[in-house]
């Protein structure tokens, strides 16, 4: 459909002021957190009611027009990148907390409510919403569900999928469905799990009921520094082996430490090759007992120093360095490219060594930030986009890291999603039959394929073509695929 026709059709179902069609008005929507990719849609719509969303879906479904849903646009994999022939649907106006149920410890919220706003709204009941992605000030719950967002505390408290009860979706055909119940499980297939992390390909999330937890009585953090990354890795394994599940267990390597320290002066030792931040939370006695145990585990792993935060202020400062790691790296390099692979923890030292080798090979520095407890590695590749060819080099470096993650038994994405960014690496992680099963699932929800097309799951054709480009020693990757 031509833009003028589409605009006229849209004007028939939505008030004029909810439709953006000019280049200037749509510019804020041309990218998400992965700003290397930019694209203007034909139209952007900002519906205010579920009925309006249904009408937009029906229109797009009928005419097979691509439809991309967008929350706050903080995603890091280009999942909300608009489609050049399609409509971008912003859920920004769905920003209300519908109901808080103190007794059932749940809250029903619209998808455009910010993650942190939920915890703030229920704080006076002594409750909170546990998943805390680092973008929690800005990111919205609808996007969290679409991406199955994690956060620093997900080793103990789980991902989004573990912390929601029910969602309402509008299907591609415009039907409003309720998935899940207000109870702890639901009859039939676990569609709630299937929808969570489906990156806007199966339906548009229009309401979310989240689970709330009692706020921990106390949190305490230990900062330990090591002269060897492998020692830090062993300390992580030993903490788990001691039977302790910390609320957060984070590792940073030397370059990340130096960048963070220069930025926020958190008191990180600059000579360390690696630091660990281990946070314990819960009730008072539990925290004291586990902190003592962690102390003795750390002592046995030959740290160059370790320190327990003596006050809430110092705890915040220890965390400030970790939380500011990304912007801190942004200060020492014109650009950086953030990766999101997961690996079995035992492979950490091997993987970091290989990343260093690749770093030398590509001539690009890399800073590593690691959710050590759950094996989620965020290598930040430093590059300069103004230098011709550097972005491409950084992307190749990143692709090599993800391949490495899959080789050691991990995954190409732990929490940022596939989006447009890692679509080619999906061909590395999944075989053709598996991708075909994904497409069959997609067709069960969205037969015309209008929702977020081109994201998250590559076509077999794309994988085959990619394979053809990457012939290595005469061996075709994905030999089982048909070649077109």
């Amino acid at each position, binding site marked *: 459909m031509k833009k003028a026709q589409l605009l006229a059709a849209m004007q028939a179902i939505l008030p004029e002021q909810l439709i953006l069609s000019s280049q200037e008005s749509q510019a804020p929507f041309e990218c998400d957190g992965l700003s290397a990719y930019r694209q203007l849609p034909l139209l952007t719509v900002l519906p205010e009611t579920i009925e309006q969303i249904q009408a937009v879906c029906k229109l797009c479904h009928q005419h097979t027009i691509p439809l991309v849903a967008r929350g706050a646009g903080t995603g890091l994999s280009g999942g909300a990148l608009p489609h050049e022939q399609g409509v971008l649907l912003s859920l920004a106006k769905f920003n209300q907390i519908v109901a808080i149920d*103190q*007794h*059932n410890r749940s809250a029903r919220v619209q998808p455009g409510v910010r993650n942190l706003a939920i915890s703030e709204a229920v704080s006076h009941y002594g*409750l909170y919403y546990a998943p805390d992605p680092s973008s929690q000030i800005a990111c919205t719950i609808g996007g969290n569900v679409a991406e*199955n967002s994690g956060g620093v505390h*997900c080793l103990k408290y*789980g*991902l989004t*999928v573990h912390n929601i009860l029910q969602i309402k979706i509008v299907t591609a055909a415009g039907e409003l*469905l*309720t*998935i899940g119940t*207000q*109870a*702890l*499980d*639901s009859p*039939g*297939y*676990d569609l709630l799990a*299937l929808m969570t*992390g*489906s990156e806007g390909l199966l339906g548009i999330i229009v309401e979310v009921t989240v689970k709330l937890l*009692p706020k921990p009585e106390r949190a305490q953090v230990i900062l330990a520094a090591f002269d060897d990354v492998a020692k830090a890795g062993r300390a992580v394994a030993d903490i*788990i*082996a001691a*039977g302790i*599940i910390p609320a957060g267990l984070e590792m940073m390597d030397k370059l990340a430490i130096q960048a963070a320290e220069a930025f926020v002066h958190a008191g990180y030792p600059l000579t360390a090759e690696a630091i660990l931040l281990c946070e314990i939370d*819960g*009730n008072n*006695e*539990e925290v004291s*007992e586990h902190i003592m145990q962690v102390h003795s585990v750390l002592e046995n792993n030959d740290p160059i120093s370790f320190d327990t935060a003596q006050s809430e202020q110092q705890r915040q400062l220890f965390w400030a360095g970790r939380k500011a790691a990304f912007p801190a790296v942004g200060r020492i390099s014109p650009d950086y490219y953030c990766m999101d692979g*997961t*690996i*079995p923890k*035992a492979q950490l030292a091997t993987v970091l060594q290989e990343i260093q080798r690749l770093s030398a090979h590509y001539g690009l520095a890399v800073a590593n930030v690691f*959710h050590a*407890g*759950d*094996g989620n590695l965020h290598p930040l590749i430093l590059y300069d986009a103004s230098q011709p060819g550097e972005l491409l080099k950084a992307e190749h470096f990143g692709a090599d890291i993800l391949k490495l993650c899959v080789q050691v*038994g*991990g*995954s190409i*994405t*732990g929490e940022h*999603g*596939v989006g447009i960014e*890692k679509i080619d690496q*999906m061909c590395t*992680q999944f*075989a053709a*039959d*598996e991708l075909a*099963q994904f497409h069959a*699932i997609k*067709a*069960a929800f969205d037969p015309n394929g209008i929702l977020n097309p081109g994201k*998250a*799951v590559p076509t077999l054709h794309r994988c085959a073509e990619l394979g053809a480009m990457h012939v290595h020693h005469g061996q075709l990757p994905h030999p089982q695929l048909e070649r077109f």
Partner: protein
Amino acid sequence: MADQTHVLQQQVLQAIDNRQPLTISAGQTKAFLSPAPTGDILSVADHQGIVSYQPTELVVTVRAGTKLRELQLALAEHNQYLPFEPPHFGNDATIGGTIAAGLSGSSRPFTGSARDYVLGCKIINGRGQVLQFGGQVMKNVAGYDVSRLMVGAMGTLGVLLEISLKVLPVPASECYLSQFHTPQDALLLMQTLASQNLPLSGLGYDGEAVHIRLAGAAAAVRSAQQKLGGQHHDPDIFWSAINEQQHPFFAGDIPLWRIAVPPATAELPITGKQLVDWAGGLRWVKTDETSDNLFKLAARHHGHAQLFRSSQKAANRRQPLADGIRQLHIQLKHSFDPQAIFNRGQLYSDF
């Protein structure tokens, strides 16, 4: 025992060729949940063994026919466990059946459900293809979450071959208390306790006493115990007994219903005995009331009902699905199993 993947795949391919329906079976301990099998039996009972287990990774990968007890013993050697406390309902229970049925025990509101601990799976779909989803790492958002979709699907979407599960360290200390209360007070007490920062791993009510199970760091359990008070009791009398449905409440011929509701829901107005688990979120009910009545009542309370055990045949054992959701189920079933080979009628009668 040996890997039976190839043998099972050949059987499935044969069944597809012959358009012969299959009902997947292993330990037969949860057969009572579904109507009689359709077509031939595909037994995964010999597909056994722990494929990999690295305690410090908190992940175990296990073949579907492995006995649940055997898996639990292997984890216990490293002081770890399955935190969703799956019921066995017999010595032959397998991990495949446990995941297919998707049942979780009393710790569910506090430590999570079966699906919460599933990280990855290997299946045979209805095209006879061996497929792998998810992984052996804690976090993995590549592709749709097919692994968790398998939990509770009663084998209707494919044959489970391998399952990767997150495991956790066994809590350092446990303690079991009980306090006598009226039904109304019992439900209020559960709400109050569940809203506090206590090391809880079970809150149930048997009609006379609220049973409180504490689990966690020794000092935390000790202080909670002092704070709460109540009588100490033997865990086997209540907790193990209700998990395995050996408690006297479950005896007798009256149909047993499982009704999941939001935890603060008042006592359900049903003629018959009730036992409360999941801090109020799960109500076991022994009643002769009609399915229709109970489905309506559960829906009114934003939950759902399931006829769990009955000596009589019943057409509709599970809460009816809303039209749009039912349609999605049928389409999803078709996407995995286009010829409807697997487990016809084992979840719902129409797919």
